[in-house]
C-alpha cells in the first residue's frame, strides 16, 4: 500500500525524471544521435542570431506541444493522433509567428520563412508521438525541455562555427552582427585572411554537424555501434 503511493507520488525531479532532461543533451541527442531535425539545422545556422530566436521558438513550441498532447492523451482517438499532433504543432507555430510579427517585427523579418519551418521539425512530432502520448504532463514537459535544449545547443554550436568562419562575425538578437576581425587582416586590405564562403553554403552545416558527431562519439564511447 505504502509502496503504491510512493510510485504514484514520484517526485518531478526524481532520478528518472532528471534523466529525461539530461539524456537528450548527450546520450540521445535529437540531432547528433537520433539524426532528426537536420533540415532546420541546415537552414538557419548561417547567423547566430537566427539560431538563437529559432531555438527559443522551438523550446516554446516543444514544451507547449508536449504538455497539450500529454493532457489530451486519454481522449485523442488513436486513428487520428498524427493529425492531432500536426494541428497542435501548426497551431503553436502560427501563434509564435503572429506574436513575433506584432511585437518583434525586425526579428520576424529576419527569420521570415524559418518560423514556419518549425512545423516540419521532426524532433517535435517525434517527441509528441514517442513520449507525450504515453506520459503525464510533468515528465512530458521535462522531456520537451531536454530535447529542445539538446537541439538548441547543436544549433548554436553550428551557427557559431559557420558565422565565425564564413562571415568573420558573431551576431546576437538586439545587437546585430559584430565583425571582430580587424579589416587589415583581409586580403582585400593587404592581409592574409579571407572569409570562407563555403561555410555559408548549406553543405557545410551537414559537415559541421558531422564533425560534432565525430567529436561526441570520441568522448562518449557508449554511442559507438557494435559492428
Amino acid at each position, binding site marked *: 500500500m505504502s509502496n503504491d503511493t510512493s510510485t504514484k507520488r514520484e517526485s518531478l525531479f526524481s532520478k528518472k525524471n532528471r534523466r529525461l532532461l539530461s539524456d537528450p543533451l548527450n546520450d540521445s541527442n535529437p540531432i547528433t544521435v537520433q539524426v532528426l531535425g537536420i533540415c532546420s539545422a541546415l537552414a538557419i545556422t548561417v547567423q547566430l542570431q537566427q539560431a538563437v530566436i529559432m531555438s527559443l521558438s522551438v523550446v516554446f513550441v516543444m514544451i507547449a506541444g508536449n504538455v497539450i498532447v500529454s493532457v489530451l492523451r486519454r481522449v485523442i482517438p488513436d486513428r487520428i493522433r498524427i493529425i492531432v499532433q500536426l494541428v497542435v504543432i501548426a*497551431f503553436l507555430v502560427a501563434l509564435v509567428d503572429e506574436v513575433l510579427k506584432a511585437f518583434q517585427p525586425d526579428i520576424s*523579418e529576419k527569420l521570415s520563412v524559418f518560423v514556419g519551418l518549425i512545423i516540419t521539425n521532426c524532433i517535435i512530432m517525434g517527441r509528441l508521438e514517442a513520449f507525450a502520448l504515453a506520459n503525464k504532463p510533468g515528465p512530458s514537459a521535462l522531456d520537451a525541455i531536454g530535447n529542445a535544449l539538446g537541439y538548441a545547443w547543436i544549433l548554436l554550436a553550428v551557427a557559431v562555427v559557420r558565422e565565425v568562419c564564413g562571415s568573420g562575425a558573431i551576431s546576437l538578437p538586439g545587437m546585430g552582427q559584430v565583425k571582430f576581425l580587424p579589416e587589415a587582416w583581409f586580403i582585400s586590405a593587404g592581409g592574409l585572411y579571407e572569409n570562407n564562403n563555403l561555410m555559408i553554403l548549406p553543405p557545410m552545416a551537414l559537415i559541421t554537424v558531422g564533425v560534432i558527431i565525430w567529436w561526441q562519439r570520441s568522448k562518449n564511447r557508449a554511442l559507438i555501434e557494435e559492428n
Partner: protein
Amino acid sequence: MPFNKNSNGFTFFFSILMVVVVGAVLAVTSVSLRPLQKANSAEKKMINILAAIKVPAERGGTEEVFAEFVTARIAINSDGLEVGRMTGPVDPSNLEDPFNIDIKKDFRSKKPAEELSFPLFECVTASGDQMYVVPVVGRGLWGPIWGFLALEVDGKTIYGAVFNHKTETPGLGAEIREDFFQEKFLGKSLRAEGSPYFEVRKGGAVTDDHSVDGITGGTITSRGVGEMIDRTMGHYMRYFDLMKK
C-alpha cells in the same frame, strides 16, 4: 456505456471540436494583433523611405520624422500623370492615401499597368535639397525583393538606394540589403534615352554610369534588382518628363 475514445462518433466529434477551437483561437489572435502588425509594417516603410534619403530613423517616433522630411505623397498613373496627392499625417486606413498603395500586391496581381497607380514620395533632405523616392518591387531567386530609390530633382541621378528581400540565399543574393551593394548605386544615373534605364551586370563586369556590378553568386537576385528598377522607372520617367515640359 463506457467511454470509447476510438469510436467513429467520438473521432468525428474530436476532430470537429479541435478544428473549431484552434480556428477560433488563431482568428482571435490574428484579428487582435492585426493593428499592431499593420502599424509595424507602415513604420518599416517609413524607415525605408527615410533611409533612401539618408535620414536615420528607428522604430518608435518615426511618424514625426517622416512628416518632417516627406512633404507630399503622390500617386501617378502609367502615363505619368498625377492622379492623387496627399500631405499631412499618414492615415494607415485611408485607401486614398498614396502611402497605402500596396505595390507588392499590385505586382503579384499581374494587372496591366494601365489599371494601377504608382506611389511617389516628395521629400526634402536634411540639407534642404528636394528629392523623389520611388518604391520598386520585383522578383529574386526564391521570392519577392523590393526597395526604395531616392532620385534627385532632375529625376535621373540616384541619391540613395535601399533594398530588401524575403527569402534570398544568405551570404549570396541576401547581400542586396547590405551597405556595400547599396552604396554602388549612389551617384549613378538612369539612362534618359530609354529602356534599359538601369542595369545590374553580372559579377565583375565593366560598369558605366547607368549600371552597377552585381553580386557574385547572386546572379539571379542581382538581375532581379536591375529588372525591377528598369521596369518601374519606365512609368516614373514619363512623370518626370511631363513635369519638365
